[in-house]
């Protein structure tokens, strides 16, 4: 029982990290950024190559990965979304563009790096920390702590800095915020920078826990579910949704069967959309897709 909770938290922490980046973009631009998963995947590759090819120490790999993720996400915004934004396109078109970017980048990885699976070198000893009757891998513990720190840092940034306030203002109403002096392009660029960095970080953790491969970004489906559960566009909601989903999945796998785990996860998505479309902590999202 305790073991299941611990395992669930370890998975939930990564879901939360992914869901936060996804929710961040949603809160400003009101669309599902399907390219988020691709940035996670590229971030995982970046971290892997910094570690193995450049033989850099682990902290450098994390920083390198976050920077690459941030750069890719900002470039993605500039090339694929900004032109749509200028033309006042509907959120649907953003979503289609995001899917295009995601498929393009994934296939680009197949064509250049190839279909091989990569495994991160062992950064941590394969030892477990024992908490009562349960044990948690050092990697999982590190990922959980680091995810929490990253999410808290983001929270403080949004609450206490000028840029953070601008982002929050834009997430309520972009037009009004811009009348009050928020520079939209800068705010949106910053949002993608943060979301990309978080995506890459979760990519490194996923890569270390499991492995690195071109379709690994599909796991963001779970981040979308987590974001809906928590309330689309709400950052604390994304965290809660991620952790809840991780726990739910682990309990289903352990006590029922892992073959129907995803049936539970996605039923949860449908139930929330029907009964509580704003999620646990969300705002009204009627006009959003």
């Amino acid at each position, binding site marked *: 029982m305790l073991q299941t909770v611990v395992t669930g938290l370890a998975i939930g922490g990564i879901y939360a990290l992914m869901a936060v980046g996804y929710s961040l973009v949603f809160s400003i631009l009101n669309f599902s950024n399907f390219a988020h998963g691709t940035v996670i995947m590229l971030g995982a590759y970046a971290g892997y190559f910094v570690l193995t090819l450049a033989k850099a120490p682990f902290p450098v790999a994390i920083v390198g990965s976050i920077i690459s993720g941030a750069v890719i996400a900002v470039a993605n915004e500039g090339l694929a979304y900004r032109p749509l934004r200028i033309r006042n396109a509907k959120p649907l078109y953003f979503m289609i563009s995001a899917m295009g970017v995601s498929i393009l980048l994934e296939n680009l990885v197949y064509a250049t790096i190839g*279909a091989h699976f990569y495994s991160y070198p062992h950064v941590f000893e394969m030892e477990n920390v024992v908490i009562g009757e349960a044990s948690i891998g050092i990697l999982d513990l590190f990922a959980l702590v680091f995810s929490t720190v990253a999410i808290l840092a983001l929270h403080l940034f949004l609450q206490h800095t000028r840029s953070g306030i601008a982002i929050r203002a834009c997430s309520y109403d972009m037009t009004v915020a811009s009348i009050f002096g928020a520079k939209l392009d800068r705010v949106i660029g910053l949002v993608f920078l943060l979301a990309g960095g978080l995506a890459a970080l979760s990519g490194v953790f996923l890569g270390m826990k499991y492995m690195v491969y071109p379709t690994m970004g599909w796991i963001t489906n779970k981040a979308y579910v987590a974001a809906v559960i928590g309330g689309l566009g709400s950052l604390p909601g994304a965290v809660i949704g991620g952790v809840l989903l991780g726990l739910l999945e682990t309990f289903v796998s352990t006590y029922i069967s892992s073959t129907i785990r995803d049936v539970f996860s996605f039923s949860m998505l449908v139930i929330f959309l029907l009964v509580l479309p704003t999620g646990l902590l969300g705002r009204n999202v009627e006009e959003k897709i």
Partner: protein
Amino acid sequence: MLAGALSGCGQQAQPPKEAPKEAPKEAPKPEVIKIGHAVALTGDASIWGQSESNALKMWVEKINKQGGVNGKQIQLVAYDTRADSVEAVNVVKRMIEQDKVVAIIGAAQSGVTIAMTSVTEPAKVPVIATTATNPAVTVKDGQLKPFTFRVCFIDPFQGTVAAQFASTKLNAKKAAILYDVGSDYSSWLGQYFTEAFEKMGGKVVAKEAFRSGELDYRAMLGKIKKENPDVIFIPTAQKEAALAMKQARDLGFKGTFLGGDNWGSPDIVTLGGKAVEGQYFVNLASMDDPDIQGFIKEYKEKYNAEPVLPNPVMAVDCLIALVEAIKKAGTEGPAIAKALEGTADLQVLTGKLTIDPKTHNPLNKPAIIQQIKDGKFVFAEKYVTK
């Protein structure tokens, strides 16, 4: 004979110069024989698919340089299936309706090939599967599919080989199975293993399933570990197997792991690391096989990479059998199928190929047990079908 042709290709400088001189004379007649290739070039199975595709291109080039088949050049029409059944049906339709292929090589996956035959059988286009090992690929409900063939052994045999090996060589009394419920290959192989293992007096103490693409196996492995098996049979692809083995070792499982031919990619070592060291799996072809050294050398020279066995070798076996059938019977589907059915003692890369007319499966196809030692696949045992 083939080995000679292979090693002769080391001097690549001269033949290409001759070929273009003759080519222009024949060029006005656009007489080509189109052969379809349904292959996973992207997706999780693409590591084999890309290698398979490379090998076929190389071999077709070689046949064409030597004058083609019945005076015609072979043209390969390859489309990506992504190892997805729906996608495969679409590409096969395109091959047959638009490209007018005379026969199709592929697919590597049983489920995908079974889906393809729903189109190829009515269209009377022969299909030769490379590594689709499920019995239902060629025989469904006791009914032989007249246009579907394969060059690999079948899963009941593979499952029996694994069970025999576990029972006699590893002295296993209790086995557990961790399988992919989303894959025909995996669930049936688990079933065949169970039947053979219990027939030999062993007991399957746990059977745990997961869905394709699973990343975390701790919940299932925890249940398996409680039963304390000697062996865990993991009939899945290398990615799933490597992750599961790693996690099983993390949980403190000390026994042996055993797998099927889908393990045979070097990825299993890079992914599994120490966890896969010393473990065993059944395979279709081995890099150590002296018969295919020429092929491996040629492949390495051309692509500057090692072929990812067994698919490239099996695909070339398909091509050789197909070319032989076309030589005898021409390019009509039913005639090719008839000729394929009569394939006997044909020299292919992996040995002599004889197709059983009753099942369209190869006879006397050896299965190899390999062990992972120092990150390499080492030959351990050889079994032959009866």
